């Protein structure tokens, strides 16, 4: 597998603050590479350096064998970025938006028209050429945001949380498009706060914390890191708050999270503490509906490694 992207000892400082800390990473051709990290972990900063938007403080980035600072034009031609925040002109139509940005990559004439139409059709906006984004739903804007980054057919597409704040239908559409782009030969870097998304589409995943990659590999490789951990899901009837603190005090429990009607408890697998947990819940007058033990998943890996929740 040849490397599309090589990152070597990459560091970025903002003043004294180290946002990216001596990161080294290779991404192979045809990968969908996921960056997982909590808020402020340094995902966007890394991505922005890859897209030539920020200058590295130290280290180097090599794209398709060429240093992106020295061969800046080449690197830019072969990269497409979907920024974390919407980056589109509200006063220009969907077509004009895509066509304008694609035009900056040297496309013109019939070729430009063709690629623009393709990109819009690709994200499912084929019938919205003449509409203005101000009349779009959040999901449609996100899709236009993607179309603007792919019309020039880059080798590497960088997506910084492309599914933030949109309806499930648009999200599925976007995930499908990511897969399709990948099948067409694009290498993709994908960041998200949504564990399920990353689990679903990424071929390889890096967990980023405080500017460092603390674990990296396929989903299976990552989950095998924490064989000594189990996750217990307890369904309950939702009335009143649940005292998470009292559960955290139980021996073996490393993390507790409440998601609607489910308590997700990460615990050391060698400690048998299910009885204590259930006793505590009964004492707190929680009405238990179900109890199941989960195999370790990415979420528990993340929780164990970083001690943080992926989402605030």
């Amino acid at each position, binding site marked *: 597998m040849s490397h599309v992207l090589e990152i070597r000892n990459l560091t970025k400082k903002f003043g004294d603050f180290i946002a990216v800390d001596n990161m080294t990473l290779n991404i192979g051709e045809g990968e969908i590479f996921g960056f997982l990290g909590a808020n402020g972990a340094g995902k966007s900063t890394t991505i922005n350096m890859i897209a030539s938007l920020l200058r590295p403080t130290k280290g180097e980035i090599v794209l398709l064998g060429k240093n992106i600072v020295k061969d800046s034009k080449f690197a830019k031609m072969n990269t497409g970025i979907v920024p974390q925040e919407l980056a589109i002109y509200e006063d*220009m139509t969907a077509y004009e938006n895509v066509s304008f*940005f694609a035009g900056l990559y040297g496309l013109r004439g019939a070729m430009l028209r063709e690629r623009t139409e393709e990109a819009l059709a690709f994200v499912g906006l084929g019938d919205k050429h003449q509409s203005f984004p101000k009349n779009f739903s959040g999901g449609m804007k996100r899709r236009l945001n993607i179309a603007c980054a792919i019309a020039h057919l880059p080798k590497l597409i960088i997506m910084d949380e492309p599914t933030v704040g949109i309806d499930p239908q648009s999200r599925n559409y976007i995930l499908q498009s990511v897969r399709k782009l990948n099948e067409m030969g694009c290498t993709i870097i994908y960041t998200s706060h949504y564990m399920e998304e990353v689990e679903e589409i990424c071929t390889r995943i890096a967990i980023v914390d405080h500017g460092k990659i603390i674990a990296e590999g396929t989903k299976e490789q990552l989950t095998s890191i924490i064989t000594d951990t189990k996750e217990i899901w307890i369904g309950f009837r939702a009335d009143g708050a649940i005292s998470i603190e009292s559960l955290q005090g139980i021996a073996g429990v490393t993390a507790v999270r409440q998601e609607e009607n489910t308590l997700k408890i990460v615990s050391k697998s060698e400690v048998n503490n299910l009885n204590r947990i259930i006793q505590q819940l009964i004492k707190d007058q929680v009405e238990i509906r179900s109890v199941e033990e989960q195999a370790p998943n990415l979420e528990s890996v993340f929780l164990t490694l970083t001690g943080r929740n992926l989402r605030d």
Partner: protein
Amino acid sequence: MAIWRIALKEILSSVRNRQTFLFMLALPIILMLILGAGLSNAFSSKHSVGEVRLLYQATFSENDMSAYWDSFTKAIGKEGVEVVPIRPGMDWRQEVSSGRYTAYATIDKEGIAFFGSSKNTVESGILQGMLVAFADRYALGTAAFQASPGVGTNILKHAAESKDFIQETTLAAVRKPGSIDYYAVSMTTMIALFSIISANYLFGAERARKTAIRLMAAPISKGEILVGKMIGNVFINTLCVLVVVLFSKFVYHAYWGNHFWLVLLALLTEVLLAVSLGLGIGFLLTKQEGSYMVVMIFLQCASFFGGAYFPIENTEGILTLLTNLSPLRWINTALLELIYMDNIAAVWKVIGLNLGIAAVFLVLTVISIRRREAF
């Protein structure tokens, strides 16, 4: 190629922006009409005749001449002009520039030399007209000068140079702007300066919409982006100025003089000045609100002191300084002198000044762009 795409995109979004039309077209056209009608009295020549005072020095070799002069001064005295011979020890420059006298004239067998106050241009224009008429009748050469320190314009130079002792002068040289003529000029130069607003937001808008990210990620240089955006912005602002000028000329019948192309060139350089100023401020103060405040305060002051809303004359001290700091002051004065006195040199000077200042702010912008990582 990318430059033209960016310029076109800029033009497209300006055309779609209602504010462009409100600010750059409707505002000046309506203000011209309102101010032109409302303040028309201020422009009638009646208002100042009572306050006109002429200081003079006369040396006559022939008695005839002296008699003519006496009858002339009597005649204009009836019109309300006070005519006073200079006394020994009086400094005429001081008298005129302080405003105690409207003008100073010397009369001898060589002809008449006239030094008018640049502060009271209407009054000194009237006096000059009277003296020209007198000189015409009595076959004297005349020369007229603005007496403001530093600015000396030889309005009727060709008359003085004339080999023929009897010179031809026309009263057209002292044609005065009517109110609509004045506001056609002052409103046009004002909105040309308003180009600062849109130029100031050229990059702020990209930052706010995050599209700056895409521009930075594209394989084009920062220079191409800057030039493309500038071309688009200058084009659209110049177009607005042109529409306003043509509207005032053909609908309001404002007088734009005999050097129309030169007027347009001066206005173009003013737009360039404004655009570079706006860009420069936008990069020096990247906080959009702060930048906008500075621009709006500057524009209001420049418009007021530059005479956009009413002509500012007879200023003293700090007020003189403020009026002279307003680009509109230089431009309006030069354009009025061009239109009404055919003073071409004054306009070229202002064109040079505009381009010079524009260049300074462009250089500042370029330095600032090169320094920062993003826009």
